[in-house]
């Protein structure tokens, strides 16, 4: 459950081609991370999977085309966490997480006892039970981020898309959130496709990295393969040193450019 196959996926915004013929296979339970400079097409790929932007080519989930499914069926397969989620200040945490159950409720239906119980279980799992009745506007950035994950989890979709979902958090909260995603991935066998800017964190959590540049894949594979100084210099225009720790962790460190 949850494998994802991209076949020559193309996304265009008017004249501009954001993604050009992206072909990739993501195994069920795998964590694939899309990296690349701003405008490389990372978000567009995620948005195409979520059905928020039209695309050429095809995206199959478990061997079936996503485009052939209704909006609701797709939402039961794919949970999407945007870069800047919209959290209404005057909505309670419980109401917010309950929205994740929408794919399982008919157009004129309402949440069942099962839906309510599941939301309770998700909040328990993330240690958020105490926040259930609180308004979103009263919560901290870290708590809000967790609630967005809780909503995605309540969606019970085998595929989780994270679009820079942790970029706004400090290093501690970022680590906690990614650690949580990884635990949930293992517990529920989730397939995770994320877009990330922090290359060290990307290499630390993802099984595989795909480096995009102007809509094309320019490098793909494990962190040690993709995160090389000459590659990053070429496509990010960045000057970096790459260290490999004893445990195999790849660390990308920016370097000052010295003139003359």
């Amino acid at each position: 459950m949850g494998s994802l196959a991209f076949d020559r996926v193309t996304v265009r915004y008017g004249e501009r081609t954001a993604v050009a013929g992206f072909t990739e296979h993501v195994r069920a339970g795998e964590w694939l991370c899309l990296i690349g400079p701003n405008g490389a097409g990372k978000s567009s790929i995620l948005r195409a999977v979520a059905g928020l932007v039209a695309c050429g080519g095809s995206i199959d989930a478990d061997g079936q085309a996503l485009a052939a499914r209704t909006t609701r069926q797709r939402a039961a397969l794919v949970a999407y966490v945007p870069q800047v989620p919209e959290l209404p200040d005057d909505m309670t945490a419980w109401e917010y997480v309950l929205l994740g159950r929408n794919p399982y409720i008919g157009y004129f239906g309402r949440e069942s006892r099962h839906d309510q119980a599941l939301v309770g279980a998700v909040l328990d799992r993330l240690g958020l039970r105490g926040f259930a009745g609180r308004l979103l506007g009263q919560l901290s950035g870290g708590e809000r981020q967790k609630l967005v994950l809780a909503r995605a989890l309540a969606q019970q979709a085998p595929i989780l898309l994270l679009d820079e979902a942790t970029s706004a958090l400090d290093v501690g909260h970022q680590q906690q959130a990614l650690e949580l995603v990884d635990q949930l991935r293992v517990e529920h066998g989730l397939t995770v496709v994320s877009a990330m800017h922090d290359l060290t964190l990307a290499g630390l959590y993802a099984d595989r990295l795909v480096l995009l540049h102007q809509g094309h894949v320019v490098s793909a594979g494990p962190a040690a393969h993709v995160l090389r100084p000459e590659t990053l210099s070429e496509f990010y225009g960045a000057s970096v040193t790459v260290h490999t720790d004893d445990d195999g962790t790849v660390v990308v460190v920016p370097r000052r450019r010295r003139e003359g």
Partner: protein
Amino acid sequence: MNRRSWYGWFAAALALLGVAVVLGAMIGPAGAVSRANWHIVATVRLPRVALGGLVGGTLALAGASYQGVFRNPLVDTYQLGVGAGAGLGATVVMALGITGSRMGLSAGHAWPIVDPLPLAAFLGGLAAVFLTYVVGASFGGNRATLVLAGVAVTSLALAVQALILQRNNDVVRQVYNWLLGSLSSASWSDVRLALPYTVVSGAVLMAHRRHLDLLRVGEEEAQALGAPVRRIRLTVVVAATMATAAVISVSGLIGFVGLVVPHVVRMLSGSSYRSVLPISVVLGAAFLILVDIPGRALLHGAEIPIGVVTAMLGAPFFIVLLRTRQAAV
């Protein structure tokens, strides 16, 4: 959590509505209810109470629905141009003299089968709200541009209406009385005229409460959660406009009910549309019945039109809302 706590507020609103109905039936120039004035109670006061409740409840429900679908707490019938558009539609029908409702009776013959007044008001209102939406969206579609687009559409509709009135002097007084918004000549036939439209569209709006909550996280996220956003938006706008047009055609333009009532409800019972919609209906009905009482009791023979009363209460409220929201956004 506490998803059932709003039932208490709903019950309280129902109790207030009960009080409003009793007071509405009891108070009037002919004194309290007795055997002697029962005829007045049944043919003058009760239809007026029923119409007030129907109009108030519908305007509050439609206002809350517009706010949900446009994700903007500042919009209502007036701000979206629906009132002016419906007014223009109704003016056309009155100028042509083809309406059977009380506003049109003096102008010409009664329309035999289906009265065209609500239909014309509906089409006018619908055209206006779509124009407002398109214009507002083309300038960025934020809260302020939507309201400004509504102002522009309202001005346009009023200008066309003025042109029509200038060429049809005979209906000026009739249209003007209607524009002020009044329940003063309410009859059971007015209630019958508006009821079918409001019941149908009210049921549709009520059935979309959960969807309005989904839209609160934005169009994209709602869609990613599996909500058919376009269908929801279109259905809700059409239903809310139909309900609004139906009551506007029998009561005229009564402003600010749809703005004030849902806002008060949100402050009391939380902002989930699950509770905002049903409580707004009941509280809106109670509000308009109660507001109508002093207008007819205080000045014998010279009533204050209810649209004037609600505007006097609502306009300052809107300004306060604008200030606080500006700080929040």
